[in-house]
């Protein structure tokens, strides 16, 4: 199979050829392993990729094919896993020094669900350290590059997963989204990225950044694949009490085009403000225009607290992070500083050496926000704003069923462009943070390409209305017919051929 053929393969297509026996699981994974060996030197999407292990999983599937006539949903499909999600037996580094050699003795619920659905756990993908960042530059194992333009970042923090899907190293990947960490890299790499409703997917085994915001979500080349992956990942988990006791999302709940057409679309004006790149606003507006022509009811609405959401997010998320990252103290696991004399010195040196600058910055900000005397002014106020943001959405959903916005205020930027300016970096999350604060399901899909760079459009639905979100996204995908990326493997760089 050539890359050109595979470009338009959906999971259902892989399943069909596997089912017919046109290709074996081993042959299929070899194709993807081959793509990885072509692309990895250029993009560095994977932190851990063990070909032997991958082949062994495929071999197991051939030896013990499922008894049912119908293959399981993800039978033989390679799925890449962000490296802050625990897979037993292989490292879970979070892109950090402190967990450089950490191997989890147990597996995340989402990984178990992937395995049960027949997926092949392909490897662990790169990320900003502890999922804190928007460019995948802060990983201690080197930055990941955007396969669409190697001089640019893939977004973050799930940049490794987005780049792996965009370059077709794998057809599917999972990432984690706290304030936009799945949707923003999906937008930067021209693929589909989903943040499910908070509580839709188990967080057990996902290294916590901000507990009240973290959600695991799919990245894929097609909306239907993301929906399928969401179905596999979702559902109640007795090991996570923040996971909602609802039945899993099911793709069969997705409304038909007929029903979808009846949805009222809300366009929040705050998302088209001056802070958003004009070309991006234009592309999203033009997509909305096309929907209106299809007969959709389009309503301009207002989410008045949008401007405060980002700052409130940084108070709440970092407060939680400062506490969640306290466990990395060098006592029980992970790296411990050597040559220290006292307990306090051990703590200090371990954390100084083990964490990168952005992680330290966030721990300090979060610690400050929770400190006595500042708690009311910072953390509590952040929580209050969060309530206001949520109420904005609640009110909006009285008038409409779906909100459409740009996913990112900017195009993928150059490596190094924002890394030394944290505030500029934080601003890249400004359009993805509000729905995360409200816990709403949100999806980014590519609505256009401008000068070879993708433009992400965000679809936001009400709580646990993934059905509507996917319904509208499927409609849009077909309507816009923007093909998924298939960048050409770069030529060997000059001077590298020695």
């Amino acid at each position, binding site marked *: 199979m050539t890359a050109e053929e595979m470009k338009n393969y959906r999971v259902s297509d892989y399943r069909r050829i596997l089912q017919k026996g046109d290709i074996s699981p081993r042959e299929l994974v070899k194709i993807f392993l081959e793509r990885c060996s072509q692309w990895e030197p250029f993009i560095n999407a994977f932190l851990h990729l063990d070909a032997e292990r991958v082949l062994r999983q495929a071999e197991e599937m051939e030896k013990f094919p499922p008894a049912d006539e119908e293959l399981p949903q993800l039978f033989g499909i390679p799925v890449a896993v962000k490296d802050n*999600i*625990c897979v037993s037996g292989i490292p*879970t580094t*979070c892109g950090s020094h402190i*967990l450089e050699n*950490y191997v*989890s*003795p*147990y597996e*995340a619920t989402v990984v178990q669900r992937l395995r049960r659905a027949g997926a092949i756990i392909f490897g662990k993908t790169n990320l900003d350290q502890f999922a804190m960042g928007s460019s995948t530059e802060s990983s201690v194992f080197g930055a990941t590059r955007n396969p669409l333009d190697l001089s640019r970042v893939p977004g973050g923090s799930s940049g490794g997963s987005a780049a792996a899907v965009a370059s077709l190293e794998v057809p599917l990947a999972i990432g984690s989204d706290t304030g936009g960490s799945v949707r923003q890299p999906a937008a930067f790499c021209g693929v589909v990225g989903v943040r499910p409703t908070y509580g839709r997917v188990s*967080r*057990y*085994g*996902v*290294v*916590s950044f*901000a*507990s*009240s915001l973290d959600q695991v979500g799919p990245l894929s080349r097609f909306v239907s694949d993301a929906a399928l992956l969401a179905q596999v990942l979702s559902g109640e988990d*007795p*090991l*996570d*009490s*923040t996971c909602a006791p609802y039945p899993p999302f099911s793709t069969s709940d997705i409304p038909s085009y007929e029903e979808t057409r009846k949805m009222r679309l809300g366009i929040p004006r705050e998302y088209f403000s001056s802070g958003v790149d004009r070309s991006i606003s234009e592309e999203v507006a033009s997509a909305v225009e096309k929907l209106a022509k299809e007969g959709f009811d389009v309503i301009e609405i207002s989410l008045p607290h949008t401007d405060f959401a980002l700052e409130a997010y940084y108070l709440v998320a970092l*407060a*939680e992070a*400062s*506490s969640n*990252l*306290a*466990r*990395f*103290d060098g*006592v*029980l*696991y992970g790296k411990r500083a050597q040559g220290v004399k006292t*307990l306090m010195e051990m*703590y200090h040196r371990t954390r100084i050496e083990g964490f990168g600058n952005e992680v330290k910055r966030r721990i300090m900000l979060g*610690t400050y926000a*929770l*400190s*006595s005397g500042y*708690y009311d002014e910072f*953390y509590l106020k952040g929580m209050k704003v969060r309530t206001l943001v949520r109420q904005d959405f609640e009110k909006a959903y009285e008038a409409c069923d779906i909100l459409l916005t740009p996913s990112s205020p900017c195009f993928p930027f150059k490596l190094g462009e924002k890394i030394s300016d944290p505030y500029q970096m934080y601003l890249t999350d400004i359009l993805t943070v509000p729905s995360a604060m409200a816990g709403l399901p949100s999806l980014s899909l590519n609505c256009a390409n401008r000068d070879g760079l993708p433009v992400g459009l965000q679809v936001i639905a009400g709580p646990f209305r993934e059905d509507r979100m996917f319904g509208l996204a499927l409609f849009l995908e077909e309507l816009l017919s923007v093909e998924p990326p298939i960048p050409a493997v770069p030529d060997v760089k000059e001077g590298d051929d020695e």
Partner: protein
Amino acid sequence: MNNLKITIGLEVHCQLSTRAKMFCRCGTDYIGKGPNSLTCPVCLGLPGSLPVLNQRVLDLALQLALALGCRILPKVVFHRKNYFYPDLPKGYQVSQYDYPIGVNGSIDYALQGQRKSVRIKRVHVEEDAGKLVHEGMALMPDQSGVDFNRSGIPLAEIVTEPDIRSPEEARECLMMFRSLVRYLEVSDGNMEEGSLRCDANISLSRNPGEMGVKVEVKNMNSFRSVYRALSFEVERQKVLLHEGKEISQETRHWDEIKHVTVSSRGKEEAEDYRYFPDPDLLPFSIDEASLMNIREKLPELPLERKERFMLEYELTESEAGVLVSSKMLADFFEECLKELNKPKTVCNWITTEVLRNLKNLGKNINQSEITPKAFTELLRMIEKKEISGTIAKSVLEEMFTSGMNAREVISKRGISFISSEKELENIVVDVIENNPQSVADYLGGKQKAFNFLVGQVMRQTRGQASPEMVKNVLYKQLSAGG
């Protein structure tokens, strides 16, 4: 100088008797278990692990708070208490802060016949930390290890208002806490094993209208050390006040060996724990129905039961006190009364012989083989003078060790038992006929001769008759014959 006002408040931690830990399914029975054998990703705080509340913890805490007469708050909220210590695997302890389980309760106890009351400020639940180990097989001399078996075990913390006026009161109050938790069966309340722990705040003041400087005393591992440590503090602070010196606000540790409190070194600045609601555990409401259910099932509490025992069974305060010190023992007592309605006798035997045997065996009454039926059968045999008290004691001992009932013990020992005066008559007549001189002496007024004859009868029966009965029959025969 003599009318110094002593003010004491207690902070009591008790381990709640759940089978599983507070937020995972690991077992809680860590006594005698190898280090870190009762652990999992959750109680080790491994990256990615999450807590799920064991509902039983809430049930037990609600029972405790209700028994203390607390107002139950409608919502359950857990907070994180953030600090670094090697025995704390997550870098924070899951606890409760401004939303405890219950507030504004009280506990009553009696001291020298006087009923006293201490107000309870709050009852909350939290997880225990692990334990530092400084010596062991795998450790080098300069190394320490951490055993996380205790990590995540549920604790209830009870904070009293500063209503206690003396070390004696503190000890009594704490003993009442122990009775209470044992009654409710929410904790085994064992201070030596650490399932009941107590810290105290104590201050002395010259002016009864105000409180002095608060000193916190820790590391008191028995009721006796609570009493001793607080008495020491009273004396220490008295001397300081007398000398006109300042008492510094500090934490002091009780030294069990030297019998002094020692100032804990380290920073005196108040630590900032940065409490905030744990986002991994969502707040939830307590439903009225289950609260009602718990309220209805609350057992009679120790102080009420003690007073009822004194009134209903005419026991002394100390007798009743011993019986109600454990719910099991008090239950056993009342079960026995259903078989044999002689409260005084039953009480006497329980508070002496039964407790002595239990202590020797290191068991509690429920763990022992003895049943109320078997025990009262033995007492009934004494009542009927079928056996002597002395024999009964040794029979009881064997009943405890073997699990046999009284009759089985007796027949095993080959004691064929003379239980009627009729059976004795022949032996007595024989003895009278064979000892004419002694009979004559007795009839002549020598009391010693009677005792000699009793001895002869006892010898003939090989101790199988009760001396009372022998005396009785002998007396009758001698009077009849004379």
